[in-house]
């Protein structure tokens, strides 16, 4: 009966002696660059020679491999198959040198590869999740424009369902815009928002208060009847915050506050003139 150490030593020898051959077979089956696999192969060899206790380096390499695959659009099966392919590649060598130790070594080796394959799968899933999260974030930024309505007046037209995270992003962006443009009036238009919950309403309120601390006034416009109902039912205090039913009313309010006069009705020629405040 041979010890674990003997088995590992023998397996290590085999892997070292036939490195060229195994890597060639592996490269064929795995559809991966030879350099990458060679590096991986040596890390596996080192891990086996050290008794399979320290897998940190190996895991690092595998995680990198999984990440690059996930980004390049490979499927998880393809990715982990690249690792499992090493078993097949080594099998030929094992058959040619079959003795008791080698076979037992191969079983242990196969187990190690299975573990590594699963790890690859997990790392792949994690990398994908990260990609999805990054994309969600990019989408968030795309969908939240802050537009200039007039000199000193900006607006955020919010469209779609507001969740807490999105509201926070929009609000931060609005406050940043106030600093950048020096706009003292902002309109938060929620005409396109079907519903708000307590958290979202709180975020809206906090934004108005934060803008005030910075020296700007916010008007909230486009509050639908259902939303007004929700806000009142939830017991959220809008206090002295100015609300307007439409974006147009909010703009007119901001004009008045900043000393811009609009003359003429909708059907006539409109002239606008700004007064020095």
């Amino acid at each position, binding site marked *: 009966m041979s010890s674990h150490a003997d088995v590992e030593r023998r397996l290590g020898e085999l892997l070292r002696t036939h490195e060229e051959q195994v890597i060639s077979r592996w490269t064929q089956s795995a559809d991966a660059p030879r350099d990458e696999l060679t590096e991986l192969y040596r890390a596996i060899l080192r891990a086996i020679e050290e008794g399979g206790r320290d897998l940190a380096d190996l895991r690092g390499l595998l995680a990198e491999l999984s990440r690059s695959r996930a980004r390049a659009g490979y499927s998880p099966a393809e990715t982990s198959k690249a690792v499992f392919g090493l078993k097949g590649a080594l099998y030929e060598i094992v058959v040619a040198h079959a003795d008791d130790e080698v076979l037992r070594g191969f079983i242990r080796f196969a187990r190690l590869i299975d573990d590594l394959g699963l790890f690859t799968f997990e790392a792949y899933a*994690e990398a994908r*999740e*990260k990609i999805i999260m990054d994309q969600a974030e990019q989408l968030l930024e795309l969908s939240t424009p802050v537009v200039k309505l007039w000199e000193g007046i900006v607006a955020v037209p919010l469209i779609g369902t507001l969740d807490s*995270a999105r509201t926070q992003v929009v609000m*931060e962006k609005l406050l940043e815009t106030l600093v950048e443009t020096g706009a003292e009036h902002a309109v938060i238009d929620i005409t396109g928002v079907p519903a708000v919950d307590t958290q979202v309403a709180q975020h809206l309120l906090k934004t108005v208060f934060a803008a005030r601390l910075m020296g700007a006034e916010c008007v909230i416009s486009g509050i639908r009847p259902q939303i007004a109902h929700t806000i009142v039912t939830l017991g959220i205090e809008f206090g002295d915050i100015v609300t307007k039913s439409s974006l147009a009313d909010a703009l007119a309010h901001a004009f008045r506050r900043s000393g811009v006069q609009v003359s003429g009705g909708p059907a006539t020629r409109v002239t606008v003139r700004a007064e020095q405040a």
Partner: protein
Amino acid sequence: MNAEREAAIASSADVVAVRRLVRSAAIEVGLSLIDQTKIITAASELARNALVYAGRGEVRVHVVENGSRRGLKLVVSDEGPGISDVERALTDGWTTGTGLGLGLGGSRRLVDEFDLLSEPGKGTSVTVTKWAR
């Protein structure tokens, strides 16, 4: 990276030093600018509390991980008189000192996790965590 950092609080200049320590750790963890500001402000409140009520204290800063998320954990502790009524201490406007009484309740709103341990006569330890979004 996971090394724990700490600072003693014995003067109001130390409160400023605590803010710097927390800022560098918050940047390292990747907190957004707003979240950095929130956790630094919370640290400032808690450090001042330790200074005002216990005369001195200390802050320990840990980088923590939860899956793929990283966060910053602060433990602000003192060996002061402790708080006999924790619920009340967390109520806005309640203070036994000269402040506004926004320190504890306010800091709780600035962080994601807030844990207060206090034993009258032995001291107070507040642990707060802010996760990177």
